[in-house]
């Protein structure tokens, strides 16, 4: 079996067993993480393809690339694929699945077979969604507002609704697995206050997944029933209230945005201390802020409905609550910057993504506050201002955090180093491409360009062209890592156990880890982020 020398041929979870059956029937959380990696990357391409078509259409003011109906399908499916099949699973299902047991010193998640079931549910949902898209798609927007979705749209609403319903179960089971694992399977000595903040972030995310997803599940069931049986629960001509749909939809979909951002925040909280060589500033505040975001996130949903017809008093209440929910996020930003202050900073690829995250998330978050102000919202709601706001958070925030995390843990996952100069270049390209794509959209929205429109007045064209140009640059930035990650699996430098000199139990085992994670079950006697006592790494960190 293993020799004392650090070689890539040592038995690990990747080479322990070969063959497609060993992958499709695996219960190893690390292999399941890779299965998810492949699947969500596939759906990212699909969602990106729709984005490309949208941006192409918007190069000119006239609707000349596609029909209006087709354009409605493009933005709807872009949203659904990106939200439900990329962003929501991304970090939890890939990095969370891989790292949660490792970080707490466990052999696997609490329910390995349920973990595999989660992936299969995701695949079934994804196939159903693909079939829906290939046979006509859906044009209701990712938000499925009634009565258009239930009574008027002649697209495949039922199929899309069912696909998302099934994907919801995948999400619920992942969350359930994480909560039980974190409560019941921590190694001896791994007390709650020694947990990596990545774990706290995933714990908070899982709470949202558990409590929020069932509501959208039942709502989609009601939409499907209404559409199929002409019930009228959400149809005003049959006595129903379209706003009831929106209340039920947003009760999940607002917390869902925290499902998308919290794990990314967790990633950033691991990267910044490592590349500042300093423990995280305010551990307890960061941990508690994750939980606060999860709880407060459930209190603000109707800020998506300010102009939909809710009462003024409800609007006031939800506006005030929306200001509250920004506070814990701001606390995190302060803690990250305080961690970097007087730290010994290395501008490695993961750190570049973390910097990007902090800046862009802050911009996205602050513009969320603009939207929470009723007076401003009346003017910019349903414009490109909103589109820019959420892309700053989802792409500038969540996606950059995901990429940063993929780079940070790639050595652990694959046993190889990616080429660092290319990594930094790609990060820069992503950052520049992102800002070029989405900053003009803030201006467009402020100037009055509505969202979901396939034609626009000619005076908006310059900004739209800039945005499309940015999207092209962004696409290059995304393709680069895919290429060099694949390249590194064969030609990359062999990674040591801890190339970054990072804290955390995952770095105490081999790169890649053995199937059961640790040669010896760990016993923890030290605090998290113990960077005063961890030496900076000497090898395989800079250059490539």
């Amino acid at each position, binding site marked *: 079996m293993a020799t004392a020398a650090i070689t890539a041929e040592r038995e690990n979870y990747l080479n322990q067993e070969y063959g497609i059956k060993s992958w499709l029937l695996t219960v190893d959380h690390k292999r399941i993480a890779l299965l998810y990696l492949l699947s969500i990357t596939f759906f990212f391409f699909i969602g990106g393809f729709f984005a490309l078509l949208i941006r192409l259409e918007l190069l000119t003011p006239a609707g000349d690339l596609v029909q209006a109906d087709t354009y409605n399908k493009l933005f709807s499916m872009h949203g659904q694929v990106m939200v439900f099949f990329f962003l929501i699973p991304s970090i939890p299902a890939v990095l969370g699945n891989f790292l949660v047991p490792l970080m707490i010193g*466990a*052999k*696997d*998640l*609490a*329910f*390995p077979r*349920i973990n595999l079931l989660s992936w299969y549910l995701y695949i079934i949902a994804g196939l159903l969604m693909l079939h829906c898209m290939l046979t006509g798609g859906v044009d209701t927007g990712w938000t499925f507002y009634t009565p258009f979705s239930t009574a008027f749209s002649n697209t495949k609403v039922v199929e899309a609704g069912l696909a998302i319903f099934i994907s919801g179960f995948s999400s*619920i089971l992942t969350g*359930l697995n994480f*909560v*039980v*694992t974190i*409560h*019941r*399977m921590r190694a001896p000595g791994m007390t709650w206050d020694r947990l990596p903040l990545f774990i706290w972030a995933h714990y908070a995310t899982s709470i949202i997944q*558990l*409590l*929020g*997803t*069932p*509501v959208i*599940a*039942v*709502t989609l*069931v*009601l939409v499907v*029933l*209404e559409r199929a*049986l*002409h*019930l*009228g*629960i959400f149809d005003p001509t*049959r*006595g*129903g*209230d379209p706003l*009831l749909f929106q*209340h*039920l939809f947003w*009760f999940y979909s607002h917390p869902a945005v925290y499902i998308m951002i919290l794990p990314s925040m967790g990633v950033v909280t691991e990267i910044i201390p490592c590349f500042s060589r300093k423990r995280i500033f305010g551990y307890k505040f960061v941990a508690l802020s994750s939980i606060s975001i999860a709880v407060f996130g459930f209190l603000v949903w109707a800020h998506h409905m300010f102009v939909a017809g809710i009462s003024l008093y409800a609007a006031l209440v939800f506006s005030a609550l929306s200001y509250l929910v920004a506070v814990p996020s701001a606390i995190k930003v302060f803690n990250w910057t305080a961690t970097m202050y007087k730290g010994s900073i290395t501008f490695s690829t993961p750190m570049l993504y973390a910097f990007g995250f902090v800046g862009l998330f802050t911009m996205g978050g602050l513009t969320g506050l603009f939207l929470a102000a009723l007076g401003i919202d009346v003017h910019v709601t349903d414009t490109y201002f909103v589109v820019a706001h959420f892309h700053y958070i989802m792409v500038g925030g969540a996606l950059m955090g995901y990429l940063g995390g993929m780079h940070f843990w790639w050595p652990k996952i694959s046993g190889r180093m990616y080429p660092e100069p290319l990594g930094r270049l790609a990060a820069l390209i992503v950052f520049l491409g992102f800002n070029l794509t989405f900053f003009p959209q803030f201006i467009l929205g402020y100037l009055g360009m509505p969202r979901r429109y396939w034609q626009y007045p000619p005076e908006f064209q310059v900004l739209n062209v800039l945005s499309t140009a940015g999207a092209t640059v962004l696409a290059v930035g995304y393709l680069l890592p895919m290429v060099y990650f694949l390249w590194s699996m064969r030609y990359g430098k062999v990674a040591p156990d801890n190339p970054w000199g990072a804290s955390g139990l995952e770095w105490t085992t081999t790169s890649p880890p053995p199937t059961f994670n640790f040669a010896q079950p760990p016993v923890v006697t030290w605090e998290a982020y113990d960077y005063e006592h961890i030496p900076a790494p000497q090898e395989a960190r800079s250059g490539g």
Partner: protein
Amino acid sequence: MADSPIAMEHHNPALKHHFADMEQQREASSLGMWLFLATEIMFFGGMFCAYLIYRLWYFPEFAAGSNSLDITLGAVNTAVLICSSLTVVMAVRSAQLGKRQQQVIYLALTLVLGLAFLGIKAVEWTSKFEEHHIPGPTFNFQGSIPSHPDQPVDQRHAQIFFSLYFAMTGMHALHMIIGVGIFSYLLYHAWKGAYTPEYYTPLENSGLYWHFVDIVWIYLFPLLYLIDRKK
């Protein structure tokens, strides 16, 4: 016994390899089931929310619709489920006490009661079909509003009541069917002697699920059947 309790734990064939001992496995499984039930509370909760709003808006038609339901069958079904919760509890208790035959009897009784519930529900739904109370193109509600018999009934509002009635009792019945499936599986394995005082976790956790479905009905009965029934 030849083996010490600790040795028994480590050698228990039901112990999964990623758990340190049976205690950890049991606690993890239990927490897992409770978390799942929490998701079910939110799942049914969405429908309770719709119910709440429309009951406030359309109280007269809700009362009319409710009065057209068979209160006897509803009450009997409530009793049936309560009895089945007792048999579930007694089945778990029998496993705790190592009584295989008793387990099997109680599990079989649970199944019978569960099927009885579904049978009565089928009878109720059939009469709803015959009275044209099923939402859709055939819907035609001829009942009257209890406290104001001369007030005209808005068919759309009545249809909303019945939409929610069928959605909620239908979803509940689906959960009952799944429960019957689970308990059939348990019955078979209990008969084979799978559940002992050292390991009866599937029984215990499935019991939790069954009790939860019972609790949903405990709320559905007054909310659907007992709106404005005063004489």
